[in-house]
């Protein structure tokens, strides 16, 4: 397993191999709303371009944690990730991007846009607070990697309610949380 350190320009391939279940086939489920949303993003792309370039927005297209820190507001998260139990098994995108191919790109676009906007306007909370939508993303990635281990915690029926992993494991990705 290669450990993704900030220096090694870890590519998607060199990212840690998650437990076997990740590969297990699953369908992404997304509705019409997301298509409308994707178009909306397209329209806004122009607005976002400036910061996207300035903030080295291409970092969103890479898996290298170092690229997130192109924005210094991400430095704390980088530092705490370095000290976390997952620094050698998961990079930022492993937890902050959905593991299904489409959700992944939509989230990238969405977050890329909103981070850039927030960064440009500077009107975000600091300490940064994760939004409910992105909380759901992290939850889904925990489950994706640990599905077998936490099998008993999964909902009885698809889509049912389950506990939040970070309710108990708040510091897995960021030490000291």
């Amino acid at each position, binding site marked *: 397993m290669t450990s993704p350190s900030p220096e090694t320009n870890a590519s998607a391939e060199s990212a840690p191999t998650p437990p076997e279940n990740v590969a297990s086939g699953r369908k992404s489920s997304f509705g019409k709303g997301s298509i409308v949303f994707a178009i909306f993003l397209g329209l806004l792309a122009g607005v976002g371009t400036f910061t996207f370039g300035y903030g080295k927005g291409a970092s969103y297209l890479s898996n290298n944690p170092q690229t997130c820190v192109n924005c210094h507001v991400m430095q704390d998260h980088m530092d705490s990730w370095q000290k976390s139990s997952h620094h050698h098994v998961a990079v930022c995108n492993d937890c902050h991007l959905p593991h299904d191919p489409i959700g992944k790109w939509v989230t990238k676009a969405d977050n890329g846009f909103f981070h850039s906007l927030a960064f440009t306007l500077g009107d975000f909370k600091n300490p940064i607070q994760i939004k409910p939508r992105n909380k759901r993303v992290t939850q889904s990635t925990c489950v994706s990697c640990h599905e077998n281990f936490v099998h008993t915690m999964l909902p009885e029926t698809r889509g049912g309610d389950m506990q939040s992993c970070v309710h*108990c494991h708040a510091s897995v990705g960021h030490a000291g949380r």
Partner: protein
Amino acid sequence: NIFERKQEARKPFVRLVEVNEVSTDPKPWGVNFPLQYEAYLRTADTERTEYGGNHSLPPSKLEKDPWLKRLFAGYAFSIDYREARGHAYMLGDQQVTKRVTDVQQAGACLHCHASIIPTYRRIGMEKMGIEPTEEKLGEAFAQEAVMEGFRAVSQMKYEEVAAELTKTPDGTTKPAEGDPHLGAAHPVSCVDCHDPETMSIRVTRPGFIEGIAKLARSNDPVPHLPSIKRWRDSGAKEPYDPNVDATRQEMRSFVCGQCHVEYYCANKMTLTFPWSNGLKVEDLEQEWAETEFPGEDGTAGGGGEFYDYVHKETGTKVFKAQHPEFELWSQGIHARAGVSCSDCHMPYEKEGATKVSSHWVRSPMLNINKACQTCHHVSESELQARVDTIQDRTRALMDRAAVAMTDMLDAIIAAQEAGASEEDLKPIRDLQRKAMWRLDYISSENSKGFHADQEAARILGESIDYSRQAQAAAYKLPAGTKAQPEEVAATE
């Protein structure tokens, strides 16, 4: 929603043995779920039994805190009251307590000490004219029949209901020819907390189902129970139903809230959880204060003002508080932070390639590593010290409140001996009732204040205030009445 990958469902478990709604015997469940079953059996282990042998009873609270005898004077609790121990003992400990052997108790006692739902269902079906065959009893939960049976059982005697338990099949007992026992009585069991079909957790206890629906109808804010807010906001017509409306995290506390709560349990009314005004100590008190017993003939209010017992030393009608763990937890920071009873008392444990909820329900302080350290990254000794600090403060205030309470009793007794009139005593009795209720509330709650530390201290502070006010008021009673006996003596 595209951002969340819909959670996969739990794969249906391999069902080696069938279980259904009559399966109160945990053994067959244990075949399907050996890890949970083995841990469940360990609730029979207690550190204490290592000293006293398996059959000895847990330590008496009355001996440890002799003031309890005065608090409970005239009530069954004054003859026998012990520390709680593991779930395995709940039925046996109830059967041998002098509170049951020496005093006539109600059948409702078994609501929380036995796996009783199939018996409720059976009796309910009988009332409803449905023949309660084993098949019929096992088929479905049959809420309506359960509620019917629950109400019927509330009016029966303890011994009768204990006998009824064995007349209900338990899923395993095969009665010998001519044996009237179709099953055996079991303490809380898998079927009480789990749906036998899906294994989801659920609540089964009528007392809780009615109580939480009342709570939902109140306007107590309950920020720790978000589904109640959702239900209120939805303007739903149906009563709040925990099995439908609650989140899974809430259910992880609700299953315990079926029993670890304040109640009324004697035969003047059905078993009641007093939550119509909210979950705070004064909300519960208000419900009791506003309750009137039904008359002999069932007329509302015909039975006069609600009370639990007449305090023997003083003749005051008072309320008895029992183990309000759920209510006190509700006021604490952990509840607010979404931490459920199960998170601490049934923490996850790694078992090979999976994690399971520890079914060895016990004090988290015997299991600090799993129970606390996932959330609190400090040493076990530091966590122990934090709990000790909280419990020591509670203990110190409780001892102080106990002294105030006994001083009050002495003062009231003296006033009565000095011939104080009922009219004079009325406001004093009201203070006494409040004082005793609050002291009892925290001393009968089993976390020694941990579940909501500041709230526990507040309640004890109030208890002290009321006891001392009553004491002062008793001293202040018209010198005339009070001084009489002395004056008489002096002039002789």
